[in-house]
Structure formats: C-alpha cells, structure tokens
C-alpha cells in the first residue's frame, strides 16, 4: 500500500519536539488503551455530540450467550451513532474490548453493518471505527462469521461510494481475526505504539504451528511482529501516535478527508507488494532484521523509541 506520509501534526501531540512531546504526554496524556469504549467516544468526539443508536436501554442483546450460561451486555459490546468531530459530521462505532474480547457476535456485527449502511444513505464526512476485537465471537460461531463478512461488505460499499472510512486501533486487546481484515479494508488506519493489528493472534499461531514458529509468551516478539511501530514501518498503518486520546483525536481529524479510491490497479499493486515482502525478507529473520533491510537506521533501537522517532525513521 502506497501511503503518503501525513502532515507532521498528525503524529505528535500538540507542541514540542519528539522528546518534548513524549515528556509532556506522560504528565497530561489520557491513555487510549486504558479507556473503555464509551470513555474513548466521550473524549475523542466533540463534547456532548455523540447521539447513540440502539443504546443500552434498548436492550438489543445477544440471543446466544444466555444459552451458554454467559451474561449479555446491554450494548452487545459496541456503541454506534452519529457525532461531530471538529465540527464535521461523522458516524462512529466503538468496540468494547473488555466484553468477550471485543468479539463480533450476531448483534454486535449487525450494529456495525447497520451503521455503515445508514452512512451510505446519509453520507457523513467520514465513518470512524474504534476497533478493539479478537475477531469473531467464537460462542456465536457461524452467526459471528457471517456478521463479520457483512461488516466487510458494508465497509467496502462505503469506500466505493467515496465516504472516508477511518480505523483507530489503540485498545489493549488489539485488532485481530476478522476485524483485522475489516481494518485493512478501510481507507486509513491510525495506531498507537502499544496497539496491535494482525490476522491470527499470537496464541493461534503458536497453537497451529508450534512454539518454535512463534512464542506467544514472548511479549517483545509479539509487539515487534504485530505492534503499531512495526505496522507503521511496513506501511500497513498510516499514522502512528502515542497512547494518548488527544493524539488519536488529532489523527482522526486529519483523516477526515482521506478517501482512497479502490481500484483494480491499486489491488494488483498491493498484491505485488505482498509478494515482494515474502521474497525480499531476510531468511529466518525477525522484525529487527526486516527493518534494517528496509533501510531503518539503528533498527535495533526501534522498540525503545517513541512514536515520533519511529515516524521520523520510516523510509519511503
């Protein structure tokens, strides 16, 4: 994917050099990862502008969980609605990673699909997805799988209609499985340095290919393989920010006009890029060697860098 580098302001909390911004962020930042889905909505959007559809009081809950002896959530783990962002109209969904790992069940998926389909009719300035999910909610099996496929189709319909779709990934549970694919279907992805984004989660890879292939307990390995810094250096995400709600807001505002037309040529170029990644990757090497081969200077220091330093180090 050929991502134009966004303006400098998109990556940094307001004010200061890279070091200074990081220092300032430590004293004043509100961690995006530690917020609930609803806290993120309250802090990211224009104050008081969020109008929720199917709110908790509507009690549109999972029809499957009670049969398994599991408690439902009043919103089935996702809040959807319309809001304002820097005075522009947006549709927004926020997944709650603490409820069933953000898993997409039948109702949860239908809420996302319904939001995207309504956006197709109402044409807001952008659609934001605050993704935090392990993918399909396994308890709901086929219903969840079908739901995720419907979400993808609805998202791609938005792209075809030219409505910018923006995914913000910053929750502690990351964005994996079917939602990992949904994220890559969008126009624009913003991640924090502690966010993770991939298809198969670390435990899944270890379970299917063995601990020699991937040690899911090696946290440093997990982050340099799926984390925000790696995704940014590889060009898989467009903006890298610190774990700070205000930085996510700045990046979301910047992303409002970021529509990327979906074309056959674009897809073929992306497939060619993925093939080159396989053939060009240093044999048996992990992320550090990969970054070095891409021309990142002092690649071994990347895990210690803040977001701004990683942004400055990206080649091309």
């Amino acid at each position, binding site marked *: 994917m050929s991502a134009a580098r966004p303006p400098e302001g998109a990556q940094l909390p307001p004010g200061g050099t890279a070091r200074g911004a990081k220092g300032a962020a430590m004293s004043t930042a509100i961690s995006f990862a530690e917020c609930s889905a609803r806290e993120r909505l309250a802090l990211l959007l224009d104050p008081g502008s969020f109008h929720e559809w199917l709110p*908790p009081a509507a009690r549109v809950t999972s029809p499957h969980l009670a049969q398994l002896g*599991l*408690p*439902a959530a009043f*919103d089935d783990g996702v809040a959807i609605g319309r809001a304002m962002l820097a005075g522009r109209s947006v549709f927004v969904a926020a997944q709650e990673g603490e409820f069933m790992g953000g898993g997409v069940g039948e109702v949860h998926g239908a809420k996302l699909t319904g939001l995207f389909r309504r956006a197709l009719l109402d044409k807001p300035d952008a659609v934001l997805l605050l993704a935090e999910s392990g993918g399909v909610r396994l308890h709901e099996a086929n219903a969840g799988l079908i739901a995720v496929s419907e979400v993808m189709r609805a998202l791609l319909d938005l792209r075809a209609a030219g409505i910018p779709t923006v995914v913000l990934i910053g929750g502690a549970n990351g964005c994996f499985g079917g939602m990992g694919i949904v994220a890559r279907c969008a126009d624009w992805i913003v991640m924090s340095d502690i966010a993770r984004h991939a298809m198969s989660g670390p435990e899944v890879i270890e379970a299917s290919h063995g601990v020699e292939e991937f040690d899911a307990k090696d946290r440093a390995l997990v982050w340099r393989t799926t984390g925000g810094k790696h995704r940014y250096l590889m060009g898989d995400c467009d903006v890298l920010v610190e774990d700070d709600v205000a930085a996510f807001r700045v990046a979301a505002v910047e992303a409002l006009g970021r529509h990327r037309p979906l074309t056959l040529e674009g897809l073929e170029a992306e497939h060619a890029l993925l093939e080159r990644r396989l053939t060009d990757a240093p044999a048996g090497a992990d992320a550090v060697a990969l970054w070095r081969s891409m021309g990142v200077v002092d690649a071994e220091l990347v895990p210690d860098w803040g977001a701004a330093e990683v942004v400055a180090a990206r080649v091309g």
Partner: protein
Amino acid sequence: MQAGMESLSFTLAGRTPLPAGFAPVLVGVVASGNLEVMVEPAAGSDCTFEVATSARGFGPIWAAVVRDFHDRHGLAGARVSINDMGATPAVVSLRLDQAAAGLP
C-alpha cells in the same frame, strides 16, 4: 433463565425522587470479575433491581449489597439493571455508587 445464569430481583421503597425521564446511566463493563449497571427512570416511587449473574448461589449476598446501596441512596422511581460476571461484593457496591454518582 437458562442453566448457568441466575436471575435475582429486588424491590425496595424509595426515598429520594429522581427527575422524571432522566437519561439512563450506564457504568462498568461485563468482564471477568466485573459488571455493568444501568439505571433508568421508572414509574412509581420504588427502586427495582434486576440482576443477571453468572455466579449462582449468592442470592443472600446480593440482597445485602443491594440493601446497603439502598440505605445510602434510597432512589425512588428507578430501575437498576445489572449484568454480572462474578464481581465481588465490594466491586458491585462501587459500581452501584458510580452509577448513582452519574444521576442528575
């Protein structure tokens, strides 16, 4: 209710009337050792509690925690709904107080 879940309900006479038609308040998340509490307006002057919990057999403890909360706040004309995934009594009490703090 299905096997595995337990449903409990309590109705207590309220003391502190809430503004009619106030916006529902939701706090907490359904996760291991955690719960969500929603408070909505209800007709009349009672405070009703509806609990759905994955931890069976703790009815008397729920009754005590709910009574303590009601002694503190005495909400009138309120419907309190809870989805619980094995929260301890202390966590339940804190969530209930958090919800009450969010009321008008």
